[in-house]
């Protein structure tokens, strides 16, 4: 028995050591090319772009789905697209953005529908990487539950630091579609503009999942924090492939109903942002250039109908 316990403990100790030592190593050359490092650029936009500002918060439906230049030209606002990856979780996105909100800012939140059907304090490989490799000071933004949820992601994350392939960079990600330099001066992902589209595989239905009202409460809290800083929060809907949209229409209606019930200022309806495959690049929410332009036009129409009621909007 003693022999067995000693051997098992030794094996576990070795593995734990391997797992946790990876947390203290610098990012691999491969990892430092990933789009997650785009957060540094986006944070600096939030810090230095001057008022009047319009800030977009969401996942990759926004980073791939916006042409901020059109917004700037039409609305005469300075756009900042903070979106990177839906896996970071809506909580982290909001907590990171609120640090930089200034008086008079207009904040547009367009979170992916899946976020409402997952844990509010969810964690992911991407979240762990962003708070360990990209911006360590942001660890303080994570709740205890988020930190606990990060634990199962540590082994995979740490092991990647010992993977020789990640040091001998085989593919140059840095200037690719999902690289650190794939964002333009406003934070829009643009490297895929003009590239060939991929086949779009529909998303599984969300209709059987249970809506997490904690997410709505989290957004309400964000709204009051935004208001306290003298800014305005508007909510919008993500771009979604029409087939996937129809498959999850009940689940999406529930989200819209929650927005209405909680008195958020809503831009348009979910149906308006339902798009055919021809406007999508490589998944159900990533737009092509044409898709991004189309979505931006819709958003501008919706924004115009709302912005006139906002006192500090510059005419």
């Amino acid at each position: 028995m003693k022999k067995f316990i000693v051997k098992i403990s030794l094996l576990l100790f070795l593995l734990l050591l391997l797992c946790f030592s990876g947390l203290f190593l610098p990012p691999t050359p491969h990892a430092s090319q990933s789009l997650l490092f785009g957060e540094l650029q986006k944070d600096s936009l939030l810090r230095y772009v001057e008022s009047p500002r319009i800030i977009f918060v969401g996942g990759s439906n926004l980073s791939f789905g916006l042409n901020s230049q059109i917004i700037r030209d039409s609305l005469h606002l300075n756009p900042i697209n903070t979106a990177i990856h839906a896996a970071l979780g809506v909580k982290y996105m909001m907590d990171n953005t609120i640090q930089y909100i200034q008086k008079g800012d207009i904040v547009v939140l367009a979170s992916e529908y899946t976020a409402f059907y997952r844990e509010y304090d969810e964690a992911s490989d991407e979240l762990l990487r962003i708070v360990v490799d990209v911006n360590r000071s942001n660890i303080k933004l994570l709740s205890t539950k988020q930190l606990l949820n990060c634990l199962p992601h540590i082994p995979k994350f740490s092991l990647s630091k010992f993977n020789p392939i990640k040091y001998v960079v085989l593919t140059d990600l840095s200037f690719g579609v999902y690289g650190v330099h794939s964002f333009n001066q406003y934070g829009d992902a643009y490297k895929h503009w003009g590239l060939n589209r991929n086949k779009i595989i529909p998303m599984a239905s969300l209709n059987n999942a249970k809506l997490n009202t904690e997410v709505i409460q989290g957004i309400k809290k964000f709204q009051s924090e935004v208001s306290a800083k003298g800014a305005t929060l508007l909510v919008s809907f993500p771009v979604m492939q029409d087939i996937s949209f129809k498959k999850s229409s009940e689940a999406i209606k529930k989200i819209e109903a929650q927005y209405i019930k909680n008195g958020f200022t809503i831009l348009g309806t979910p149906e308006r942002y339902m798009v055919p495959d021809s406007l999508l690049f490589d998944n159900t929410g990533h737009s092509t250039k044409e898709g991004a332009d189309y979505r931006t036009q819709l958003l501008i129409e919706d924004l115009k109908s709302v912005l006139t009621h906002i006192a500090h909007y510059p005419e």
Partner: protein
Amino acid sequence: MSFVSLDFALFMPLVFAIYWLLNKNVRVQNIFLLAVSYFFYGWWSWKYLSIVLFCSIVNYVAGLLMMKEDRHLARKAILIVCCVLSLGVLGIFKYYDFFVTSFVEAFSFFGVPLRAATLNLILPIGISFYTFHTLSYTIEVYRRKLEPTRDVVSFFLFVNIFPLAMAGPIERATNLLPQIYKRRTFDYALAVDGSRQILWGLFKKMVIADNCAPIVNDIFGNIAGYSGSTLVLGTVFFAFQLYCDFSGYSDMALGIGKLLGFKFLQNFNYPYFATSFSDYWKRNHISMTQWFMDYVYYPLVGKSDKLSYWNLCMIITFLLSGLWHGAAWTFVLWGLYQGIFIVISMNCTKSRKRFEKKYHLKDRLAWNFVKMAFTFALVCFGLVLFRAENITHAWEYISGIFSSSFFIYSHVTNSRLTLLLIGVFMLVEWFNRHKQHGLQIDNVKYPILRWIFYCALIIAIIEFSAENSQEFIYFQF
């Protein structure tokens, strides 16, 4: 509580430590094991623990009554009442809605509209498994092959011992009860083997099954979007998902049993290396197949010597085993498919052997591979029924396979790595096919090599485990 969860990672070492601290007194050890088994089950639902208790009480009392009863008819009556009560519970929770809906649909088809009063009950996890556990005990007692037990703790533990509580293997009272009575001492070799088996089970589940799942869901969810050849590939992925999911669970259950000093029944013996359909069912889900053979097929056959009647009984047995899996017509058809092909396979054995003798093919590896591939193809085809949501869905899938797009190159996003992992997995299983599990590497001479292999496997589990862990498929049965 799932074996693949943080909760279980905390639960198991604690149970292991306390369990072996109590090993001086087998009764105390059994009481502890029963308590943690109920805790393990109750973690999923405390309410449904009452059904486990009900089944345990019914069969325990039946055993005691049969002990006191010598008259054959009275013993038979006790058995029948016990079976009705045990299967009745299973019937209400698992089959009531299915039969009512089918009944109403049948009447509607003939123009007689009826209104269905379905119960919409949540299926208690593991109900099919513990019902069969308990019935094996009562039937063996009835057949006088097993002494009924007075020891309530041992019996209740036999019904719901935690490694087997959720998805088997379906244990036999004749195998497990004597192990529960006996004082268990820590066996180093057994514990090491158990740990290896758990590791191998984790690899199967987390790396192979969970990586196959999104590909399978995608292909089965978008039949129209894929070519016939891709749909074929979808069945192959599902075959590996199902096998690695369930055999992975069984490996973990057997491994945990070994850590606690138990030797549970082997549930899988490399079924995808089977050289015929009948061989496949000797290797796949062995505990269930054997249960149906002993308690359905042989009693049905009785003393008949007619081959045609034997074949019919075999088809009925597999039809019922299909129904055991799930309350849906797809499962009934799947069972029928298995029954038909097992009958064909058994009836062709002689002619196949003659053919092999004539052309000197017996024991030729290449010929064995051909047979394995043929058997695997038949299994995969049948699995369309197993995976499909309903018969229309299965029909669409099969029609999709046999369309002109069958000859279009199949393409599935993100499937190459999974295919590579399946290849590596099958190689390891092939080289260990004569052992109980794929990681029985005690013949490796140098311990350092074994340790390297363990570490490599753990790293592979961490590195390649799927992003979203899936619930074990057999939990739904």
